[in-house]
């Protein structure tokens, strides 16, 4: 099936305005008759709930955390892009659009990206008006920095805690609606199923994580804002409770999963220190503005970094990419780090890290300047590694950070299940095969504040939705399914813990569906995943019961979903026999080792339809048509 | 929000405690200044005392002082009870988090305010019984001879010791009380707050030493 993106016609600059005008509206008095459900309280979820609440829709918000403010958007460090051109350096909506399409290696939908660039300017206005304390200059105006290799300074930031401040802004707006009575919070609830009635999303079944009770909630539209699936790799920069469960269960009810193989490996993370490791910590990409990346020139050079003279160091990014140097995009930097470590030139005991050296920057600008710029990051590094980065170069290694893939949505952010909208990292839409720095926050807020309020209204205003009660059979069936799964996993009473299985599936994905992927590796991974899934259901041990707070049980459900999800992740990577962005197939590279895209064969979005556990999913394609930006081979040399 | 409700809130209550505490402190300063007249001899002291007690306004002043005192006691005791209720389950192991570099003002003084306040109240009762309602001596001019009473009282080393301890306790109470009051009023700036805390402590030491000086002085004078 060819998927219809429902992109409006007309020139790219007019598409969104046209769609907004064509959209159906819901009159203020009628809005209270529609129930909206928002799952997830990160940037996308909180901003969507706040704006829909402000418009007068009754909104029920669900989150697995204790408080909506704990969603993982809070951890984003670097910044948020906006095409404000406050720096007079040649930025524009078109340039942000262009950079994002190119950065995504021509695997994103043009119209979506253009809209993202358009509303980016409104996001900054909105956030400042909410009281987000962005960094400012002495003149009192907003400060900007260049970020992630962009050649203009369009990134707004709040120290190293931009995500925190943006999320708190959205959270506070949402809490204002809680106070106003339009939004009700349902925290410590995990969505376990999407309820589809007559082909429309009509509610969810969720589990109260404190009492264990299964609950049914009916609605006229469901918005999934549940983030990405990075924790399928076990170790990632994501929070330990991040999961694919809500998205996966929606997928099993008919929502297609798009481009799961587009995962982003972030180049600057603190390396793994041992088996006990539960997560990886990102060091903001901004460090690459002043730090120089290097490894020893010769294999097995185990001298302490200070004793390695410049002549014996290989500043490999500066050598391979003289134009961009240390600021090449994330996917390029990550692969280059892997390459030098694979050659046996990695630093540290494990050989799985590269140096990020600030000695030159400190010599040039003084330690105080560097401290002012990165002090909190240096402290964080020192706390974790027990090393002083002012004296010893940092050691970094790539880690899974973000997932560009997600549930397939059309231009209206609606999935293949009518009434199910997917926002933020949970959808696939805007970043193509690689996300640029400071674009995730932009997308989450764009979807929630400025896109969903229009498109959800259009759906509600233009669809005949007969009333549905939670007593409907579909809810009962979904509840029974969820209960069955819980009972089943508790009854196994095997010998291996959920964490062991999680680590095992993570290892398979990291080794074969990580930074470099091969035909044989992926095929092997798929059969390993199947075997592991069988073992999971035969040998997992889950503590306690289902009638109280039991984090071990919640974890088991999430890992069980990864056992299924990992297969489509590997399958998608197998079927995409080209290299693009974060997806690097070793068979498809240029003679000098750069990613080789195959536009004539793979210029499409892969959207997978669920056909049963273990049954091969069906691939649907959404062709990507580039009217504005013509695909070229990315070059950062 | 009504003013009454506002003053019953946690912040309003602290404001009242601070305000009444400040008045009581100012009273102490005045009291000390008067008492130091003792050093100038019997006439100066007795005449000052007579001027005070013969003034009809003294009843109003005493009434006000009692009211302030009672309000201070009422607010602190109810707050203490509410604060205990805010943590019904205690920690098995609890330590002060304060370290040298913190701005934490937690001290032995700050943790014993309710105790030092109670001791102060008990002292006050004894103090009034000893002096205000104590033996009535008269001077040749027919006014009350408090100068003589003070000599009589502080000839007893036990009384001297009791007063010294009491002054220490009051000083201990003020050590935290003054800077805490400033914070409750919202007086704070990065530059001035540390100085303010120290000024409060200097005052505290001055007032309690000043009061402590008198029993010792009287005792020593009485010996000679």
């Amino acid at each position, binding site marked *: 099936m060819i998927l219809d993106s429902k992109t409006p016609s007309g020139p790219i600059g007019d598409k969104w305005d046209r769609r907004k005008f064509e959209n159906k509206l819901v009159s203020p008095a009628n809005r209270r008759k529609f129930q909206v459900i928002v799952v997830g309280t990160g940037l996308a979820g909180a*901003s969507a709930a706040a704006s829909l609440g*402000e418009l007068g829709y009754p909104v029920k918000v669900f989150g697995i955390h204790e*408080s909506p*403010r704990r969603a993982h958007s809070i951890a984003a460090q670097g910044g948020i892009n906006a095409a404000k051109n406050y720096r007079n350096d040649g930025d524009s909506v078109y340039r942000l659009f262009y950079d994002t399409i190119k950065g995504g290696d021509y695997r994103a939908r043009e119209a979506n990206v253009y809209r993202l660039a358009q509303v980016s300017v409104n996001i900054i206005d909105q956030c*400042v008006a909410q009281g987000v304390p962005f960094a400012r200059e002495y003149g009192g105006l907003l400060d900007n920095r260049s970020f992630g290799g962009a050649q203009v300074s369009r990134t707004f930031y709040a120290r190293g805690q931009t995500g925190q401040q943006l999320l708190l802004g959205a959270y506070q707006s949402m809490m204002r609606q809680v106070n106003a009575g339009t939004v009700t919070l349902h925290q410590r609830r995990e969505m376990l199923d999407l309820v589809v009635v007559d082909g429309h999303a009509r509610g969810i079944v969720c589990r109260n994580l404190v009492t264990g009770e299964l609950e049914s909630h009916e609605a006229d539209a469901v918005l999934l804002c549940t983030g990405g699936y990075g924790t399928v790799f076990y170790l990632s920069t994501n929070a*330990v409770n991040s999961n694919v469960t809500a998205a996966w269960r929606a997928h099993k009810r008919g929502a297609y999963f798009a481009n799961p193989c587009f995962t982003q490996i972030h180049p600057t993370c603190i390396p793994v220190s041992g088996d006990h490791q539960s997560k990886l910590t990102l060091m903001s990409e901004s460090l690459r503005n002043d730090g120089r990346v290097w490894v020893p020139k010769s294999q097995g050079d185990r001298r302490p970094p200070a004793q390695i003279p410049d002549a014996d160091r290989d500043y490999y990014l500066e050598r391979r990419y003289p134009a961009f140097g240390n600021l090449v995009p994330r996917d390029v930097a990550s692969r280059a780090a892997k390459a030098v470590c694979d050659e046996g030139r990695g630093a540290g005991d494990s050989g799985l890290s590269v140096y990020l050296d600030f000695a030159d920057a400190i010599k040039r600008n003084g330690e105080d300047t560097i401290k002012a710029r990165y002090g909190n990051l240096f402290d964080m590094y020192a706390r974790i590694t027990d090393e002083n980065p002012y004296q010893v170069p940092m050691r970094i290694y790539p880690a899974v950070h973000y997932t560009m893939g997600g549930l397939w949505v059309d231009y209206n952010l609606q999935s293949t299940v009518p009434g199910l909208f997917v926002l933020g990292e949970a959808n696939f839409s805007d970043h193509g095969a690689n996300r640029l720095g400071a674009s995730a926050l932009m997308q989450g807020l764009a979807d929630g504040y400025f896109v969903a309020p229009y498109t959800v209204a259009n759906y509600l205003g233009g669809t005949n939705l007969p009333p549905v009660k939670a007593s409907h059979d579909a809810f009962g069936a979904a509840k029974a399914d969820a209960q069955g799964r819980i009972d089943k996993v508790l009854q196994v009473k095997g010998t291996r813990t959920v964490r062991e299985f999680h680590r095992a599936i993570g290892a398979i994905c990291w080794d074969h569906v990580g930074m470099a992927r091969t035909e044989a590796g992926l095929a092997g991974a798929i059969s390993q995943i199947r075997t592991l899934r069988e073992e999971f259901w035969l040998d997992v041990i889950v503590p306690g019961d289902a009638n109280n707070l039991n984090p071990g049980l919640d974890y088991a459900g999430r890992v069980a979903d990864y056992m299924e999800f990992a297969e489509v992740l590997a399958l998608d990577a197998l079927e995409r026999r080209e290299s693009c962005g974060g997806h690097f197939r070793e068979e498809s590279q240029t003679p000098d080792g750069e990613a080789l895209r195959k536009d004539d064969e793979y210029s499409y979005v892969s959207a997978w339809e669920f056909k049963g556990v273990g049954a091969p999913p069906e691939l649907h394609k959404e062709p990507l048509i580039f009217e504005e930006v013509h695909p070229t081979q990315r070059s950062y040399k | 929000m009504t003013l009454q409700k506002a003053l019953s809130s946690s912040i309003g209550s602290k404001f009242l405690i601070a305000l009444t505490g400040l008045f009581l402190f100012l009273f102490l300063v005045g009291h000390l200044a008067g008492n130091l007249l003792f050093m100038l001899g019997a006439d100066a002291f007795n005449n000052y005392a007579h001027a005070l007690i013969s003034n009809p306004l003294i009843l109003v002043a005493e009434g006000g002082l009692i009211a302030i005192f009672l309000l201070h006691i009422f607010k602190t005791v109810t707050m203490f009870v509410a604060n205990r209720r805010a943590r019904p389950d205690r920690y098995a192991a609890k330590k002060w*988090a304060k370290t040298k570099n913190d701005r934490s003002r*937690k001290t032995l003084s700050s943790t014993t305010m309710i105790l030092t306040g109670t001791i102060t109240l008990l002292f006050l009762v004894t103090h009034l019984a000893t002096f205000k309602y104590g033996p009535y001596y008269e001077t040749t001019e027919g006014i009350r001879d408090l100068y003589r009473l003070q000599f009589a009282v502080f000839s007893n080393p036990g009384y001297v010791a009791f007063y010294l301890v009491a002054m220490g306790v009051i000083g201990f109470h003020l050590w935290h009380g003054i800077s805490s009051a400033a914070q409750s009023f919202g007086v704070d700036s990065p530059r001035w707050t540390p100085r303010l805390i120290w000024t409060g402590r200097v005052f505290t030491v001055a007032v309690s030493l000043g009061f402590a000086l008198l029993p010792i002085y009287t005792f020593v004078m009485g010996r000679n």
Partner: protein
Amino acid sequence: MVVKLKVWRQAGPGQPGKLVDYVADKVHPDMSFLEMLDVVNEGLIRKGDDPIAFDSDCREGICGSCGVVIDGIPHGPDKGATTCQVHMRRFKNGDTITIEPFRARAFPVLKDLVVNRSAFDRIIAAGGYVSMNVGGAPDANSLPIAKAMADQAMDSAQCIGCGACVAACKNAAAHLFTSAKISHLGVLPQGEPERDRRVVRMVEQMDREGFGSCSNEGECEAVCPKKISISNIARMNRDFLRAIV
């Protein structure tokens, strides 16, 4: 290394609890404190025992989920750090570590070390925002704000809502948390129009939740992972007094 643990175990809300002894062997100094608990839990699960329940999510000190009292100090011995940022190299081989939940009437224990801090959400809902709807914002640079002021707002806005301030306070007061939000928004011109209403409503809600009152000791600041200053509390007091007169 090997450490002995005394961990608060409580089956559910309102139920009696007690400190239970565990031994964590195979502790690596580079492990984080929570990873050490993960390892202990793996052992308990394999034995068929109930693992120790504790909250954690980002494990990099920003989400505010984690928080236990380690040897009598909320978030443990490191300054400016959350529980998840404490590493085992901070302890010595053979140490006995006491682990308790944050304790306050307003933070009821849900299980073991997990408490319910939703009182904080209700304090924010009472007024911790700027009342403006999406769509109505003027250009972001239309209102210059002095850098010093923006920095001051950011200092206060860094609060992660972990509740360590409440846990450390002898009165279980939430003044540091509440005042941080009041200062953040009160310092900025965007928050000025609602300054009086905000402080009154948030303080009212704070009191309603059953937190204690402030004894101006500053233990909250000493344990705050974001080093939020009690100057915020002075400011809240000032704003409150201003608002009611």
